[in-house]
Each structure stands twice: as structure tokens, then as C-alpha cells.
């Protein structure tokens, strides 16, 4: 006698997995299209690859493997580096680094979540290498190399150098900033939302850094000293 119970168990798990995938695929498409104020792909210089996966996903929503990567990844126009958002942590796990690439320019944010931060800017070479600078005298330097879906590099903060790895970030993870005047104080906050939902951010009131309150990664809403602000995705 062969017992078939275990087979049914496996089959049920498989069916459940396929069902969840199709639900994810359909709802994922919807949220991507409604929340497209400024996701990575909407700002992309080439609209063709973004249109293709959305179309296929809507036409065949119950396809179990809705990976938009095949149409996206084999478009390596050698002339320029693809637009994208990258976020990750330093090798010593003390700080977070996020890089946003748009049309050959990059903006990066280094932040330890307590008192040390830096905004860095610069150009991205066609081979994916970059040298971004920040700080008062451009003495803070990020050097990085984009390979595939990740950027590896180092951030030199003057006193210390940090190695980091930033993986491709998908909304809502990425880099956010909010600036405003709250009760006479200039407020400037920067946030890195990591893929697992963790946030690393610093809020400066008149230049004094403090750990930042959490933002709602879906809307960017954050409350600072009783006032509601909106943190927006950062672009170079």
C-alpha cells in the first residue's frame, strides 16, 4: 500500500504557493501603477522596458512567475548606466548607504542613524564606476562600482573608511529626504529604507543631528515635532 496523504500535502502546498504568487502578481501590479508618482522605473529614460512587463502582467495576471526581470535586464545599453535605486549596509553593519542613479548622475546618502551622515553627488561612468563627493570641502568621498544588481564600494568619511554593499532597491525601499521649517527651526531629514523594512535616518534641526522618526515608506509621511511632513524619493 502506498500512502498518498503525503503527496496530497505536497500538492496542497504547491497549489497554495501558486495561488499566493498569482495574488501577489495581480495586487503588485496594481500598487505599482497607482503609486507611480516617482518609482524608479517611471523616471527611466527608456519607457519601452517598463511598458512591456506591466502589459504582460495585466494581460496574464494568473501567470505564476511574474518576474519583470527578463524584459528589463537584457537591455544593457553600453552607453549609459541604467537608472536605479540601491540601498544596503556598511560591512561593519554600523551604517546604511543608499545610491540613486539617474541619467548618468548619482546621489548617495551615508547615514549611521545617530549623528553621522553625508550626502554625496557625482557622475557615473559608462562602465558603472562612480566617484561621489560630499561634505563642506568635498572631503567625504564615495567610490563604488555597479555590477549587475549591486554597488560595492567604500565611503571615506574622513576619520574612517567604510566598505559597503548596496543591492538594487525596489519601492518602497530606497532613499528619502524631507526638508521644512517647523516652529522656526530648519528641519532636514534623510532616510534609507532597506529592503527588509528597516529604516536608517537622521533628522537635523538647525544642523543638530538626532535619530529620525520612522516614515511611512508607502506615502513618505512622517511627523516631526507635531507637524506632518512628506519625505520624497531623492533624485540627483
Amino acid at each position, binding site marked *: 500500500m502506498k500512502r498518498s*496523504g*503525503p503527496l496530497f500535502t505536497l500538492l496542497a502546498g504547491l497549489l497554495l*504557493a501558486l495561488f499566493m*504568487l498569482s495574488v*501577489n502578481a495581480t495586487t503588485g501590479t496594481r*500598487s505599482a501603477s497607482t503609486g507611480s508618482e516617482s518609482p524608479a522605473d517611471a523616471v527611466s529614460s527608456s519607457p519601452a522596458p517598463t511598458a512591456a512587463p506591466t502589459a504582460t502582467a495585466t494581460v496574464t495576471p494568473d501567470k505564476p512567475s511574474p518576474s519583470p*526581470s527578463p524584459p528589463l535586464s537584457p537591455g544593457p545599453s553600453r552607453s549609459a548606466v541604467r537608472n536605479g535605486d540601491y540601498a544596503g549596509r556598511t560591512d561593519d553593519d554600523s551604517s546604511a548607504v543608499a545610491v540613486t542613479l539617474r541619467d548618468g548622475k548619482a546621489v548617495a546618502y551615508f547615514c549611521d542613524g545617530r549623528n553621522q551622515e553625508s550626502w554625496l553627488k557625482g557622475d557615473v561612468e559608462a562602465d558603472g564606476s562612480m566617484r561621489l563627493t560630499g561634505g563642506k570641502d568635498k572631503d567625504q568621498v564615495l567610490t563604488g562600482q555597479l555590477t549587475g544588481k549591486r554597488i560595492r564600494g567604500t565611503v571615506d568619511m574622513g576619520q574612517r573608511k567604510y566598505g559597503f*554593499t548596496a543591492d538594487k532597491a525596489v519601492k518602497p525601499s530606497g532613499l528619502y529626504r524631507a526638508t521644512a521649517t517647523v516652529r522656526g527651526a530648519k528641519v532636514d531629514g534623510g532616510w534609507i529604507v532597506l529592503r527588509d523594512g*528597516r529604516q536608517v535616518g537622521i533628522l537635523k534641526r538647525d544642523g543638530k543631528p538626532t535619530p529620525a522618526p520612522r516614515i511611512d515608506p508607502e506615502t513618505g509621511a512622517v511627523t516631526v515635532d507635531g507637524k506632518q511632513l512628506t519625505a520624497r524619493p531623492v533624485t540627483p
Partner: protein
Amino acid sequence: MTVDPNAATQGFPPHGPVPRRPGAARYLVPALVASAVAVGLGAYGNLHDPEGTAFNLAGFSSTGAVKSWLATVATGFAVVQLVSALMLYGRLPGPSWSGALHRWSGRIAFLVAVPVAVHCLYALGYQTYEPRVLWHSLLGCFFFGAFSAKMLLLRSERLPGWVLPIVGGLVFSALTVIWLTSALWFFRTFGVTT
């Protein structure tokens, strides 16, 4: 001391050299299926672009919370699995329905774990950026492979008595480490929230 009447796989010594040939297939098929499942999940998680977002359940603040609670439920049933298995093997006194308890707690644990894994692979992918994440990714793929092997091994009769406890123990240990590296980490980092 209760012994499940269905536990035909246990306690029978191998019947001489005659069932040697089919014996190889009995191990080979589950092993191949297990490898295919584990490698397939890892490859899928690694190759496709993580979506970042996915379907959320009402009443929970984040998908992280949903997954942590589902994983905790699965781990709870896994403990039931361990206890009921000890009952089946007569190491603990147990009721006559400990066999059914073992089967159904296992099914529930598996079915509860599936949506968590789907979310992991769909939204986050196979990641290696820190040891916790690396082990979680690795064991997450291993778990579903080992579970498939366990299910398929249940179908063959006259296995050596140690096979099922070993494979079952691997499944249980993998799930425990997966829980420690995800849900426990989540609760310690974000607090026990819903």
C-alpha cells in the same frame, strides 16, 4: 507505550539483499526531488528581481509582522510535530491519536509556512548581505527540499528505522533556525507587534 499502527516504516529490518535494487530508487527519487526543490527555490529567489512589495493581510501593520506571526504558528506546530513524533516512537507516553496529531499538525505547519516562503522569494529574494540573512535564505530553500523528501520517503515502506527521524529532525532543525533568524529577529528589532 503507543505505537502508531500506520508506522509501517519503522522497526522493520531490511529484508536481506533482495530489495536492494528498488531500495536505491527509494532514496534516489526523494533525494533528487529535494535537491530540485531546494535549488529551484534558491535559483528563483536569486534570479528574479525582488518586487519589494506584496499582498498584505488586513489587521497587520506590515508584511514583516504577518510573516513573523505565521512563522511563529508554523514553529509552534513544529514543536507539536517533535512531541508527537516522540510519542509515535514510544519515547513519550501519548494518546492513540498521536499519529493523526502528527500528520495534521505537520500539514498545518507546512501550509502556514508556504505563504511566508512565497512572500520571501517573491518580494525579497535570495539574499546574502549578512550572515543572518544568508543562513535564512539557505535554510529556507533547504527546508522545503527536506520537507519534500520527508513526504516522499513516507510513501516507501520498510525504510531503515533511522531514516525518518533523521530527515524529520533535519526539517525541524531547519525550521527552527529559519524562525530564529527571521521572526525572533523581527520581534526583537521591532517589538512584538501585530
